[in-house]
């Protein structure tokens, strides 16, 4: 299997080495959701909004290409020029004195304190609060010092605070009631502190960003970014084929050949943070106090995984390069166990043997296994969309080993409600994983069972897994410890991991210094440049 790069860096020469002859440059991209609220905390619900917000707002620090999140050197300075550890529970960031909001006001420590307060205001409904739970408080130390106090010691403190907290301009928003920020004049033309300024939004059509010539980290190499809103994937592809846009991410398998044939484009493969999986419920959906009558048995869970030809299913949906891990490990965590992307292959005889060992036999000859008069029958909870084809294939493959699976495809809202309430046997879930593997805690650890707001909706609890997780969270040598975590999950089978796709991105060849990031593809867009000899009229 072709190994995906963690990030794609094309002609990644430093800016200073570029030709002195430059053109302003324009990037036109199409996104599937309308970026109506491209700002952090009170906006940014969709990927498109977060992508635009990344151009307008800076983090305290950015990840380096290894995507490792542990250690005090995990980040590269952005809004903060440095940070120092006060003690095991306290870190202080120093803001870059050159950092300015787009209205010229300096970025102050108070902006971070205000943003932290907003995040914690329940009325805001900020969805990253569970991730930031280890942060106890944020305090301003003078105008530019920001001190983070943590609840416990762990190696990802710098990453957690520096990467996940994007400040908002307190001097503009502080006087507004919380629930009116999203409808304020600021929201219609957000003022940020990033490399691009918000120029205009044509509703339903596009958003235009202009480079901030006074950006303190250097003038952006691309002068203008146009983000078109195109909900239909066919229309997005057509725009690229006609040359009206320059980029397309998550290129579907079916379009690869057509785009490859275009000489103006190059296709690059980047690690993706998406993971599709069939989550087993550890509890009886009718009474969560009881273990699941079928799925509580690890032999059954193992057998259900072995009965599937996951490689074929994943490749037919996502093409070559897709990973099929045995644990909750998307491509961005391939650094933990690089071979973990090739999970165990289909083994129908072994699946049958395991089911027989668990007491499941076809006593009435109807083709469905049974035990004590109860058939081996499970319901697959499936939301509308791309997960259904997987469910249909799973249903057919399980039928071959005597397992009856009924697909229960429900609309998005009832799906979410049933999932969060644990009313399912098997949930066809998808997750966008955080770069930090410590986020495994939220979905798989005993500490989150029954905790309101946790994503451990299947109530999974394995003391051995938790022990290894605790070691990894505090280990000074995290790689080996995280390997242990993944190994334990592989043996424990809380879910069948169906696909860890890569992100295939199409980029116009005239761009140079291109870096594409896994979780936020366009974070380094401001460093891109246009080769003058290949410039298009729209670049001038």
């Amino acid at each position: 299997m072709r190994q995906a790069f963690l990030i794609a860096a094309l002609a990644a020469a430093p800016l200073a080495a570029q030709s002195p002859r430059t053109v302003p440059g324009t990037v036109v991209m199409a996104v599937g959701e309308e970026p109506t609220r491209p700002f952090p905390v009170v906006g940014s619900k969709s990927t498109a909004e977060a992508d635009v917000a990344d151009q307008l707002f800076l983090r305290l620090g950015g990840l380096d290409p290894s995507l490792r999140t542990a250690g005090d050197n995990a980040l590269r300075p952005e809004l903060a020029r440095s940070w120092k550890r006060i003690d095991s529970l306290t870190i202080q960031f120093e803001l870059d004195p050159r950092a300015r909001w787009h209205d010229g006001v300096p970025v102050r420590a108070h902006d971070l304190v205000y943003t932290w307060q907003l995040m914690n205001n329940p009325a805001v409904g900020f969805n990253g609060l569970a991730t930031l739970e280890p942060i106890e408080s944020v305090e301003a130390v003078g105008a530019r010092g920001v001190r983070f106090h943590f609840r416990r010691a762990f190696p990802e403190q710098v990453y957690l605070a520096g990467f996940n907290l994007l400040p908002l301009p307190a001097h503009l928003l502080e006087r507004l009631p919380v629930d009116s920020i999203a409808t304020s004049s600021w929201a219609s033309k957000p003022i940020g502190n990033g490399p691009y300024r918000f120029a205009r939004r044509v509703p339903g059509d596009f958003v235009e960003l202009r480079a901030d010539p006074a950006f303190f980290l250097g003038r952006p190499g691309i002068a203008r970014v146009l983000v078109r809103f195109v909900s239909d994937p066919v229309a997005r592809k057509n725009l690229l084929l006609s040359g009206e846009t320059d980029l397309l991410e998550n290129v579907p398998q079916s379009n690869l050949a057509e785009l490859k044939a275009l000489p103006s484009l190059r296709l690059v493969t980047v690690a993706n943070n998406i993971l599709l999986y069939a989550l087993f419920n550890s509890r009886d959906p009718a009474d969560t106090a009881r273990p699941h009558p079928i799925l509580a048995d690890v032999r059954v869970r193992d057998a259900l995984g072995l009965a599937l030809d996951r490689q074929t299913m994943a490749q037919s949906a996502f093409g070559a390069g897709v990973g099929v891990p045995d644990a909750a490990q998307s491509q961005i965590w391939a650094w933990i166990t690089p071979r973990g992307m090739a999970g165990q292959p289909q083994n129908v005889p072994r699946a049958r043997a395991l089911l027989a060992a668990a007491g499941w036999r076809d006593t009435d000859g109807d083709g469905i296994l049974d035990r004590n008069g109860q058939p081996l029958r499970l319901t697959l909870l499936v939301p509308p969309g791309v997960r259904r084809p997987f469910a249909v294939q799973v249903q057919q493959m399980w039928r071959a080993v005597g397992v009856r699976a009924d697909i229960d495809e429900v609309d998005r809202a009832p799906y979410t409600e049933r999932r969060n309430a644990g009313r399912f046997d098997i949930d066809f879930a998808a997750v966008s994983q955080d770069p930090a593997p410590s986020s495994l805690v939220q979905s798989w650890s005993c500490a989150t069972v029954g905790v309101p707001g946790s994503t451990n909706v299947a109530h999974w609890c394995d003391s051995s897994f938790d022990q290894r997780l605790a070691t990894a969270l505090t280990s000074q040598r995290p790689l080996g410890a995280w390997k242990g975590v993944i190994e334990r999950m592989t043996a424990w089978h809380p879910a069948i991991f169906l696909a860890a796709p890569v992100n295939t991105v199409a980029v116009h060849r005239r761009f140079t210094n291109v870096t594409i990031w896994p979780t936020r593809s366009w974070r380094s867009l401001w460093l891109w440049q246009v080769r003058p000899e290949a410039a298009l009229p729209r670049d001038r």
Partner: protein
Amino acid sequence: MRGWLLRRGADGLFTALLAAVALVALVHALPGDPLAAVLGERTATPEQLSALAARWGTDQPLLTRLSRYFVALAHGDLGFSMTRGVPVGAVLLERLWPTVLLGSLTLLIDFTLGLALGLWAALHPATWRARLLGAFTIIGYAVPSFVAGMVLIWLFGIRLGWLPVAGRSDVLLKMDASAWEIFIDRLRHLILPLTTMVIATIAVPIRQQRAAVQGVMAAPWVRAARARGVSPARVAWRHCWRPALTPIVTLFGLWLPMLVAGAVFIEGLFAWPGLGALIAEATAAHDVPLVVGAGLLLVAAVQIGSLLADLLYRVVDPVQRDQ
């Protein structure tokens, strides 16, 4: 006439109100937590959930929610979109104009060119041109609109590069572009979606009009006119066309809501920022206030279409007018 108009208007208003009550009640009673639009597949803390529920009113009983909604509606307030956090009225207004533009031009072409071609086909039934027209209309009607759209995009947008393949305007157009430049740009973006819409819809008025005119041509007054030596053009215009308009007026009334609903597939394929695409997005995201707002707009459009059709009946049919 005025009395009739008032009675008809009151009837329409009452029907619209009933439809609105049914729509709002049905959408609010749909299974699933409406907060899913805000939260997606994420979970939230109990404090966050209760704050969000209080903010969106989802913690109230259905009847309370409905009464609050209608009180706000009476003040012209359609509420806030749960996915966008902005007033529903503002979102609908943003998307209404592109849809009205595309829909009204489609109707205009369908009911001018379509009627003229239908009349011509009825008057020249045995010619090869009429047969060719019949074949084209059948093909246009049978081929799914998105297929026709894809072919046009491939030919004129990708292969020849003559026309833009998506959107309502050129994102690269200068912000200080002249009115003429803007007009030409909008026109260029309109051609492909409009042509697709017309191809998909024009067959119906052509065939309706042809059948209606052919029916009228057998009427005694037409034969009498011919026997009197009235010219064929006068027979067609004066004695055939106008009486044959009644079924077309019905069609017009039924199609008028297309102005508001747009065409979901075509708007999606051409990234046309209209209401059709918005309704599809809002429904997929379970954005209840936005779905209800768009639905109310459709109810209003149906009523206006019906009222306009009744008015047109009275114009084209003197018997109706006298009644």
